[in-house]
């Protein structure tokens, strides 16, 4: 490649090129370390049956060395495809997806040599772990697309988890807990909205402080009320999974997507509604316009701060609902700081997904998958210490943010307070 050609590449193209090079290096690494390095292979058993779904393939047994070799070669072919598409100036989303899948499978074959991997269970657990991330990322989309940075996702999740657990316990009714959760998130969002929009306080700082406030408050109340009076204050139940007839019977897909609790189904609804509304409705157009160019939006009669206020409140409600998953969707009882930084990971998913609803969902699913893969492999035992497995999603995020995503562009007016009459500064 001549120097002239390199210079003529635009910035996003350079970044894409760097992404493809990164993929190539990773693919070659997989081929060498997972495929060629092990002296001999051991059988890996993938099981595809989880419950009472129709059985299509029960399990698949493959030699670890053969599996790793094949998958890594396919991943390198995907890189080749991506570079060809890049030269032809076409998008290479499919090739990137193929690369990601085959690279992971290559790794999985190597890491699980001689072991049993419950494949459907792995994916089902991955979806469950990404539920709060998806809710959190959707909250981020709602508020940041309208121009208000939402670092307080963690606090909104935690508030939702706390209130839903407590109310479900006090009323002995999980539905009451579920209904209160959005309001808990909204209360935190209201603080964010008042201080950020009305008083124009720095939003990153504010969101951060709100997180500390919620962590402190819930921790305080947890020790003061929930531990001593556990049977009344912290004994809420969980929702039982609802199997959707027929759909739940589909092999692999059924148990993963259609045998879940009500909160997961609500999540599907929330994601679809946000995606459609953001790009197809009047509300969506207004949201995006106040997030990108508030002065122009106001000139056509949109009340910028009103739109922002409303969006931040809806965002809080969505995050609060996601918080309910920690208690009502998973373990029932609240515990101190049970969101454990998930709000920040949701934030990373939001940025990773470039502020688009579906992109953020994809990123959240990847994080959930990595998290669960680590859990499964820790139980079955791997050549890698479990701490390094735990690190992997975070390192992957850093690589992704610096290699693939590069200079991401947030909504242009994100984080900038707006004063009426074009006074954004």
């Amino acid at each position, binding site marked *: 490649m001549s120097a002239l050609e390199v210079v003529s590449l635009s910035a996003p193209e350079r970044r894409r090129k760097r992404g493809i090079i990164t993929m190539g290096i990773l693919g070659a690494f997989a081929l060498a370390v997972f495929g060629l390095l092990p002296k001999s292979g051991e059988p890996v058993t993938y099981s595809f049956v989880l419950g009472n779904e129709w059985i299509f393939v029960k399990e698949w047994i493959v030699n670890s060395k053969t599996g790793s070799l094949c998958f890594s070669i396919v991943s390198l072919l995907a890189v080749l495809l991506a570079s060809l598409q890049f030269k032809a100036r076409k998008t290479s989303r499919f090739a990137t997806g193929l690369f990601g899948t085959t690279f992971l499978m290559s790794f999985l074959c190597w890491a699980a040599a001689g072991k049993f991997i419950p494949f459907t269970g792995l994916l089902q657990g991955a979806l469950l772990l990404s539920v709060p991330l998806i809710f959190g990322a959707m909250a981020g989309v709602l508020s940041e697309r309208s121009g208000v940075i939402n670092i307080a996702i963690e606090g909104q999740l935690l508030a939702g988890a706390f209130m839903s657990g407590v109310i479900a316990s006090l009323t002995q009714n999980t539905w009451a807990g579920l209904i209160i959760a959005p309001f808990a998130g909204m209360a935190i969002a209201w603080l964010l909205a008042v201080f950020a929009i009305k008083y124009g306080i720095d939003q990153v700082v504010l969101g951060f402080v709100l997180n*500390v406030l919620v962590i402190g408050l819930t921790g305080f109340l947890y020790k003061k009320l929930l531990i001593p009076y556990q049977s009344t204050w912290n004994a809420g139940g969980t929702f039982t999974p609802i199997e959707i007839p027929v759909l739940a019977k589909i092999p692999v897909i059924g148990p993963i997507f259609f045998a879940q609790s009500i909160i997961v189904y609500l999540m599907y609804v929330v994601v679809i509604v946000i995606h459609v509304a953001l790009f197809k409705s009047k509300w969506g157009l207004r949201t995006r316009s106040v997030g990108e160019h508030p002065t122009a939006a106001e000139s056509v009669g949109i009340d910028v701060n009103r739109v922002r206020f409303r969006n931040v409140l809806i965002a809080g409600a969505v995050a609060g609902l996601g918080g309910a998953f920690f208690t009502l969707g998973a373990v029932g009882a609240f515990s101190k700081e049970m969101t454990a930084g998930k709000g920040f990971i949701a934030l990373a998913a939001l940025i990773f997904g470039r502020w688009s609803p579906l992109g953020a969902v994809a990123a959240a699913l990847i994080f959930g998958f990595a998290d669960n893969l680590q859990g499964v492999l820790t139980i079955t035992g791997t050549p890698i210490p479990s701490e390094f497995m735990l690190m992997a999603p975070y*390192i992957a995020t850093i690589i992704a943010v610096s290699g693939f995503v590069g200079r991401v562009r*947030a909504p242009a007016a994100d984080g900038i307070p707006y004063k009426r009459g074009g006074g954004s500064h």
Partner: protein
Amino acid sequence: MKSKKLLLPSLSFLLALFVSGLLVAFTDAQVLALKNNPLSMISKAISTAGNAYWALFRGSIFDPQLAESRFWEGFYPLSETLVAASPLILTGLSVALAFRAGLFNIGAQGQFIAGAIGASWVGFTFELPVVLHAILAILAALLFAGIYGGFVGLLKARTGAHEVIVTIMLNYVAGYFLLWLLGTTAFLRLGRQDPLAPEVRESARLPHLFGPELRANFGFIIALVAAAVIWWLLNRSTWGFRYRAVGANASASRTAGISVARVTTSVMFIAGALAGLGGAVQVLGSEYAMTSGIGGSFGFDAITVALLGRATPVGTVFAALLFGALRAGGLTMQSSTETPLDLVLVIQALVVLFIAAPALVKAIFRLRNVDSSQTIASKGWNG
């Protein structure tokens, strides 16, 4: 003018104490039991909150019980305040410096851990003369944490990866790395299976300031010196001018010929080194042995400290002293009045919230003409 500068923070602090006091009183079973008798309920509420705050004061500043034989011994709790404040000053400076250059360093936690690892490792591995050993341990901490922080700046300068995301991720990486390290033979204490590093040798420990009885140590002096150096750097040096210029307006600075990339990298290196110094002070000054929880909540606290201190070195020192006192006193409060330590977090958050929202405090106290200029403004995602 000087007194007016302190008016707003003081009122914010009082307001935060008042709101938290309500929280303490009206979650108390004895107070709630009196709900049919409003007058005695109010008096009980006041005494409950009062007891908690009295314990907070006794644990952080002055304890009359200790003063019975000799008056000055009543001030022993101040020593604990200094111990708690020293790492807070350093991590707070780390966040404050980054703020001034327009960077939001959420990674003080990870950098703190990196520093603690460096200091601990040098501290227990080598046998060296007294002063030299401590200096080398501190240098190791500065280097480890500096690289850990500088990497973030380099990544931002080279690829545009946002420092908020990268530092959040690196905090997790550092935490898990520490967990792994504590399980390796090099860091496992002889005869122990739990994740606990060996104690650093006597020669590497920081000397006590007021005799062996009190834990206050030389780490506090290190923190003050660091604050002075950062003050000089920001206000008197060419580099500091560049940092502030980039923080105020990155594109204008670039036009003026300042290398933003170099500023970003070097600021994050120094910020990392400061947080790592905090880790070193914690390990060499008071903890001596590293556990998996050595990072505590220093990353979070550092940010509230920097915010309360309005990102100035002097402000950071005072904010860290205040929060150090809350932390030290909070332990006494928890043990003697069964008020959870988490109350301290609530107070911290409220103080910062009220200070960040001067309009609110002014409205509550009906103030006019109070200096309330906002000094901290992060850059959002596109900055």
